[in-house]
């Protein structure tokens, strides 16, 4: 029982981050018909800019950074994400929309590897420990609380809570605001949207930036739990992509739910399905990937009518 509770909370807090990234992938795919292979690295960039502003590139000495500086750092990380994301849209995506797929695939990959190379050059140690934006250590028993016999990190609640709030905000923005309506109009019909006066390129670019920036926020909150590497962003981007593929680039809540489910499944597999099949533990990350590939392939073939 306690192990199951442990799995659910660890899974949900990892899955909340996956879910936000999955929302980004879905949104971008629906807006432009492409998959942003650099999204994960963009999120990594946001996280490392936050680290740079909060603590520099040196090993972290103090447990927490002052609240003001941490807030500034998070804002800086998100702004960096939005700026690079939007610039990336104009540089590596927009020239290829509606043209050769090989163009944008290669260009977004190149952007991702370039970002990672910059991070590698600036942050040369194998892994970094992030400062805690909220002093969780002071809550409960050194940051842990006991629920149904399981030791749960207080941070997990914060990550899950922030993820849900951000997902709800994303859903609200898409449904209720002018910006969201513009996005949906572009997703339906870019030419029609342009005719009614929506600035298609600027709106898309902003969405590309926000898709990364919003996810970076969750990553920064979640990151202090584990060592963070320059390649961690790419891995998170992959998990988000897997979740988005599982729901076929569906809506905000579908993508978020898929992310949560992926987190819980990974956590459950990591414990060897709660100890019933211990051999499965090393397949924790492999099985969801394989399922995503199979699902992608098994997609019923709908030959586009446009072809005729």
């Amino acid at each position, binding site marked *: 029982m306690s192990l199951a509770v442990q799995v659910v909370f660890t899974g949900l807090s990892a899955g909340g981050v996956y879910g936000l990234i999955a929302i980004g992938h879905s949104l971008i*795919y629906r807006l432009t*018909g*492409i*998959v942003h*292979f650099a999204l994960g690295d963009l999120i990594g960039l946001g996280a490392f800019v936050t680290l740079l502003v909060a603590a520099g590139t040196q090993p972290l000495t103090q447990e927490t950074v002052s609240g003001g500086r941490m807030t500034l750092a998070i804002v800086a990380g998100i702004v960096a994400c939005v700026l690079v994301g939007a610039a990336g849209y104009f*540089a*590596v995506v927009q*020239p*290829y929309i509606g043209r050769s*797929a*090989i*163009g944008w*695939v*290669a*260009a977004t*990959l*190149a*952007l991702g*590897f*370039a970002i*990672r*190379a*910059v991070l*590698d*050059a600036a942050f*040369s140690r194998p892994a970094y420990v992030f400062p805690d934006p909220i002093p969780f250590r002071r809550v409960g028993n050194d940051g842990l609380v006991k629920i149904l016999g399981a030791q749960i990190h207080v941070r997990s609640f914060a990550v899950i809570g922030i993820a849900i709030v951000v997902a709800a905000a994303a859903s609200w923005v898409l449904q209720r605001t002018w910006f969201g309506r513009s996005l949906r109009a572009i997703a339906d019909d870019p030419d029609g949207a342009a005719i009614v006066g929506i600035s298609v390129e600027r709106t898309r670019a902003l969405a590309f930036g926000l898709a990364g920036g919003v996810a970076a926020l969750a990553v920064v909150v979640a990151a202090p739990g584990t060592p963070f590497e320059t390649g961690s962003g*790419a891995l998170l981007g*992959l998990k988000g*992509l*897997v979740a988005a*593929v599982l729901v076929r680039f569906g809506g905000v809540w579908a993508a978020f739910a898929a992310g949560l489910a992926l987190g819980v499944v990974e956590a459950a597999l990591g414990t060897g399905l709660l100890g019933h099949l211990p051999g499965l533990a*090393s*397949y*924790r*990350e*492999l099985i969801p*990937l*394989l399922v*995503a*590939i*199979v699902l*992608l*392939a098994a*997609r019923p*073939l709908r*030959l*586009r009518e446009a*072809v*005729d």
Partner: protein
Amino acid sequence: MSTPAAAAVRTGVALREALASARESWTDTATAGCAVAVAAALAPFIFGGLIATDSLASGAYLALAATGLGLCVGLAGVPSLAQGAFVGTGAFAAAHVLRHTQLPAELCALIGAIAAAGLGTAAGFAVRSLDAVRVAVGTWLLSWLFALALGALPWLSGGAQGLVVPTRRLFGFSPTPLVHYELAVILTGLCALSLVALRRGPFGLDLAAAARHRGAAAALGVPMERLRVGAFAASAFVGGLAGGFAVQLDIVADPTAYGPLLSFELLVAVLVGGAAAALGPSAGVVVLGLIALAARALGSLAGVPSSRFQPMLEALLLLAVLTTGGNALVPAAIASARRLLPERRRQSRSAVHAPGRREALRADELSKRFGTVTAVDGVSLELTPGSITALVGPNGSGKTTILRLLAGALPPDRGHINLGAHELTAASPAERVRLGLVRTLQARAYFGELTVLEHALVGVNRTRRHGGAVRALVSTPLYRAENRLAEANAFAALEAVGLVGDADRPASELTGAGQQRLLIAAALATNPAVLLLDEPSAGAAPEDLERLTAILRRLKADGLAVLLVEHNLSLVRAVADEILELELGRVVRRGTNGRL
């Protein structure tokens, strides 16, 4: 004469013919390719002091893997991001076999290649009918799956230290870096030659057509899914072979070396060097090598390992090549050389008609519903040899839906379709084309910059019996003989629509009406008994209409059964024998020409 002697004479004749045809098709590009190969083979002796031979050998294996990827990206136009995983499969499979058996080194590499081809076949099968976006995502996930599997499964990868591989003699030589280098250069050369042979043959032409317009290729019966699986399998085989030999050069199979970064670097090599040219990927690898040198120089200036700069420089280079939108290295070089050299003229333009097929198409009580709308409601019709049946009616009356039901692009809800003695109701579009039922699509459904003759050849490919990829690779006598006939058949189809003079022009240069006629020619090239035409007069000027009328009359005289879906009633009146008028999916009037 005894049988062995006769066989020897026949072999001699065949060899002489092969030589003659090789001489005939020898081009300046081939001379340039040979010069490059010789220079590559001599590289270690020239650059011996500058670059370590084992780095050169690694680079040459990378070139081999990239050339394999060129098959997928260049020939099939598919963004495969899993080549790194295929190379890794070859490397680890070969490493395991080397460690656990006493098999010779070459055989171990071959086993690695076969394992990779197995994975490639599975991957190709998974993405066989997906669009480019999903192919990219699927292969990207596969690339990660392989990398994460190596990290998570020590029994597969030997843990963090990897697998140490015993070294054995290679083709009788002691396995020095130089031997590895020369072997890699030879294999890359062979692979590039195969690429050229495949590209010129039916396999390459079909793939090129499918990459440029899926719908039009499907309408001509190109078996796209099979071709794509083949392209992935072959591409993975070559990658696996490179991995299987390279791991013996490295002496250790490193589980961190075959991740998404390798897939990306191979893609960079292919795109920078030129996906369409056989030597493009190799040229791209040379550029990557120069980048590695530059990264080392930069790294020593900044005092950090060069590995930090290399991916960044590669990414920047790729972005530069992509954003300039220009040709990649090798195609650009070929294009500028072509401008300097005199163009060769095609000599033979003889047209040979394939023996015609005469069969009637019968459709009984066809129905098709889309949701609550009945698009086609119990329509029966018969198309007889030597006659033209026209379908007329307002937009949305079901004309095109009927045509698509007949062609197999849509399954009917009810009803039967028969071509002569064959029941076609459940047959795929490709099968229908083979049996003699072909359709054209509406305007602009052509294969981009493929030439007019190549369009017709894609159609002729459906009638070929000795045009498989393996025959094309070894260029068997039957294959070469059939090539000549195929070209003559293609010219016959172009002749029927008056496009022989434009045979060597890209289809994109034709007028809209010219492209319409080209679509008819490509369909005729499949040697059909029944031809389904969808709005052939779309966008035609009055003089084009006259031409089209003459073409249709000639098809009728040749004994084809034609179904004409058409808005232009004057064209219908000029050529149709029978006219069916549709309204809301039903035939409301049916009459011979002049009585409707």
